[in-house]
C-alpha cells in the first residue's frame, strides 16, 4: 500500500472525475448529440503555428479531433460530440499534460453565441451544484455568465489594444500575466471577438472582418474552453493554413502535410460552431484541484 500512496490517494478525485464524465455524456445524449470516435493517429494535423503534434510512425498523434469531426459535419452528422485523448508536444506544467482529455462538440446551424449558452448549460450540468469553490474563490454558476471582448479586456487590464500588443509581440504575455488571472473570478467569463489573425479556423465576424468569431471560457482564472463560429470557405481556409505554415517555418518548426481531404470536405460543410473543452481542467475547477496531476490516474513522470 505504501508504494502506491500517490495512486491510491487520488481515489476520491478519480471517482468524482468518472461521475462528471457520466453527467457530460448524459447532457449531450439528452440533447440528441451523437457520440463519435475519430482516429487518434492522423496523417495531417491542422497546421497551427503554436501547436506542435507528436510524430507517430510517419503520421501524427492528434492535437485535436477537429478536422475529422468537421468532415463528419460535412457528411451530414449535424450534432456530434467526442471525448478523446489529444497530444501536444512540450506542454507540461500544473495546468498542462502533453497527453490530455478533450471534449469537443459541433453543431450545424449554430454560431459562437449559441455555443456560449450551451456551454453554460453543460458546465452547470457537469457541476451539479449552484457554485464552485476554486482556489479560495466562490464562483457562481447560474446564468448569465460574464462576457467581455478581447479589446475591452486589453483596455481594462493592460491599458493597451490587442492590435498594439500583437505588433509588439506581447499579446500572449499580456493575456497570461494581466488578463487571464482576472477572468471568471465571481462568475465564469467568456472572452470573445479575437483579432482575425488569432483564429486560424474561425469565421470572421459578420460586419467586422478585423475580428474572428471566437471565444474562450475562463473559470477562476483558468482557461477551460475555446470555440469558434467555424470557417467554411475552403479557399480562405487553405490560405490561412499557408500563413500558419509560413509562421511555423519562420519559427524553425517542421512543416505538416496539407490536410487535403479536410479542405475538400469543407466545401460541403454547413454553417456550424464548434468548441474544444479541456475536461481535465474542468475537473480541476469542480474538485478545487491545484494541479492537473491531482485529477488524472497517472502523470507521465509516474509511468
Amino acid at each position, binding site marked *: 500500500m505504501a508504494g502506491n*500512496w500517490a495512486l491510491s*490517494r487520488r481515489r476520491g478525485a478519480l471517482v468524482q472525475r468518472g461521475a462528471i464524465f457520466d453527467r457530460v455524456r448524459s447532457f449531450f445524449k439528452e440533447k440528441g448529440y451523437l457520440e463519435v470516435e475519430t482516429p487518434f493517429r492522423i496523417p495531417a494535423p491542422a497546421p497551427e503555428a503554436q501547436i506542435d503534434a507528436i510524430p507517430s510512425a510517419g503520421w501524427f498523434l492528434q492535437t485535436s479531433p477537429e478536422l475529422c469531426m468537421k468532415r463528419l459535419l460535412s457528411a451530414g452528422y449535424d450534432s456530434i460530440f467526442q471525448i478523446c485523448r489529444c497530444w501536444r508536444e512540450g506542454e507540461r*506544467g*500544473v495546468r498542462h499534460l502533453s497527453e490530455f482529455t478533450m471534449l469537443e462538440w459541433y453543431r450545424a446551424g449554430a454560431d459562437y453565441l449559441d455555443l456560449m449558452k450551451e456551454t453554460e448549460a453543460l458546465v452547470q450540468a457537469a457541476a451539479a451544484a449552484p457554485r464552485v469553490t476554486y482556489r479560495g474563490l466562490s464562483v457562481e454558476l447560474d446564468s448569465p455568465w460574464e462576457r467581455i471582448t478581447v479589446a475591452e479586456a486589453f483596455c481594462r487590464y493592460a491599458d493597451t489594444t490587442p492590435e498594439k500588443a500583437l505588433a509588439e509581440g506581447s499579446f*500572449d504575455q499580456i*493575456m497570461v*500575466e494581466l488578463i487571464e488571472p482576472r477572468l471568471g473570478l465571481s462568475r465564469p467569463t467568456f472572452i470573445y471577438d479575437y483579432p482575425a489573425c*488569432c483564429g486560424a479556423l474561425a469565421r470572421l465576424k459578420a460586419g467586422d472582418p478585423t475580428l474572428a468569431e471566437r471565444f474562450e471560457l475562463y473559470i477562476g482564472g483558468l482557461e477551460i474552453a475555446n470555440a469558434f463560429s467555424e470557417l467554411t470557405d475552403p479557399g480562405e481556409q487553405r490560405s490561412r493554413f499557408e500563413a500558419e505554415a509560413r509562421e511555423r517555418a519562420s519559427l524553425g518548426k517542421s512543416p505538416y502535410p496539407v490536410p487535403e481531404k479536410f479542405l475538400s470536405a469543407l466545401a460541403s460543410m454547413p454553417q456550424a460552431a464548434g468548441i474544444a473543452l479541456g475536461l481535465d481542467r474542468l475537473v480541476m475547477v469542480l474538485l478545487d484541484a491545484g494541479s492537473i496531476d491531482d485529477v488524472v490516474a497517472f502523470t507521465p513522470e509516474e509511468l
Partner: protein
Amino acid sequence: MYTAADLRKGLKIAIDNEPYIITFFDFAKPGKGQALYRTKLKNMITGSTLDRTYRSGETFEPANLEDRKMQYLYKEDDHYCFMDNDTFEQIHINEVSLGDAKNYLIDNLAVDVLIFRDKAIGVDVPNFVNLRVTQTDPWVKGDTSGSDSKPATLETGYVLRVPPFIEEGELVTIDTRTGEYSTRVKG
C-alpha cells in the same frame, strides 16, 4: 546548454555570468498562443530575486559552479557547518543560502557544496533522503473520514503531508526535488 523546455524549479543557470537558481516555475500557454516559461530566480550570491518570462527557443548556460563532496556536521545559530572528508576543511553556509536544502540536513549527510569564485554559496542534497518522523497524530483504525493524508514533523523540523498509516518514530523517504513524501522505509 539548456533550452526553455529544460527550465524547472531548482535548475541553476547563469545570467550575466552570475549563478541563479529557479525558485518558482510555471509553464503557461494560451490554447492557440505561444508557450511562456515564467520563473522567479534567486541570485545565489546576493540572494536578490528576479521575475523573468522566457519563450520557446531561448537558451541558457548552466551556472558555472564547482561542487565539492562534503558532509554536514552541525548547525550553529543561522549557520550550517560542513566538512570536506579528504582535507577535513570545515566551511559555514548561512540558512538563506541553503534554501530548501536545510529541510533535509541530518548529521553526516553527504552533500555537494556549490562553490562560485572560491566561495561556498549553497548545497545540493541527494534526490532521496531518509528522515525520522518526530511528531504525527496516530491513525485511528477504521477512520472513515476519507482523509488521505495528515501532517508530520520530521527530525529536521520540516513539516509535510504523509499517508495516515505513518507512525511517530518511523523512517520515511523524502523526494528532495519536490519536498514530498515518497515511501516508508521498512524495518
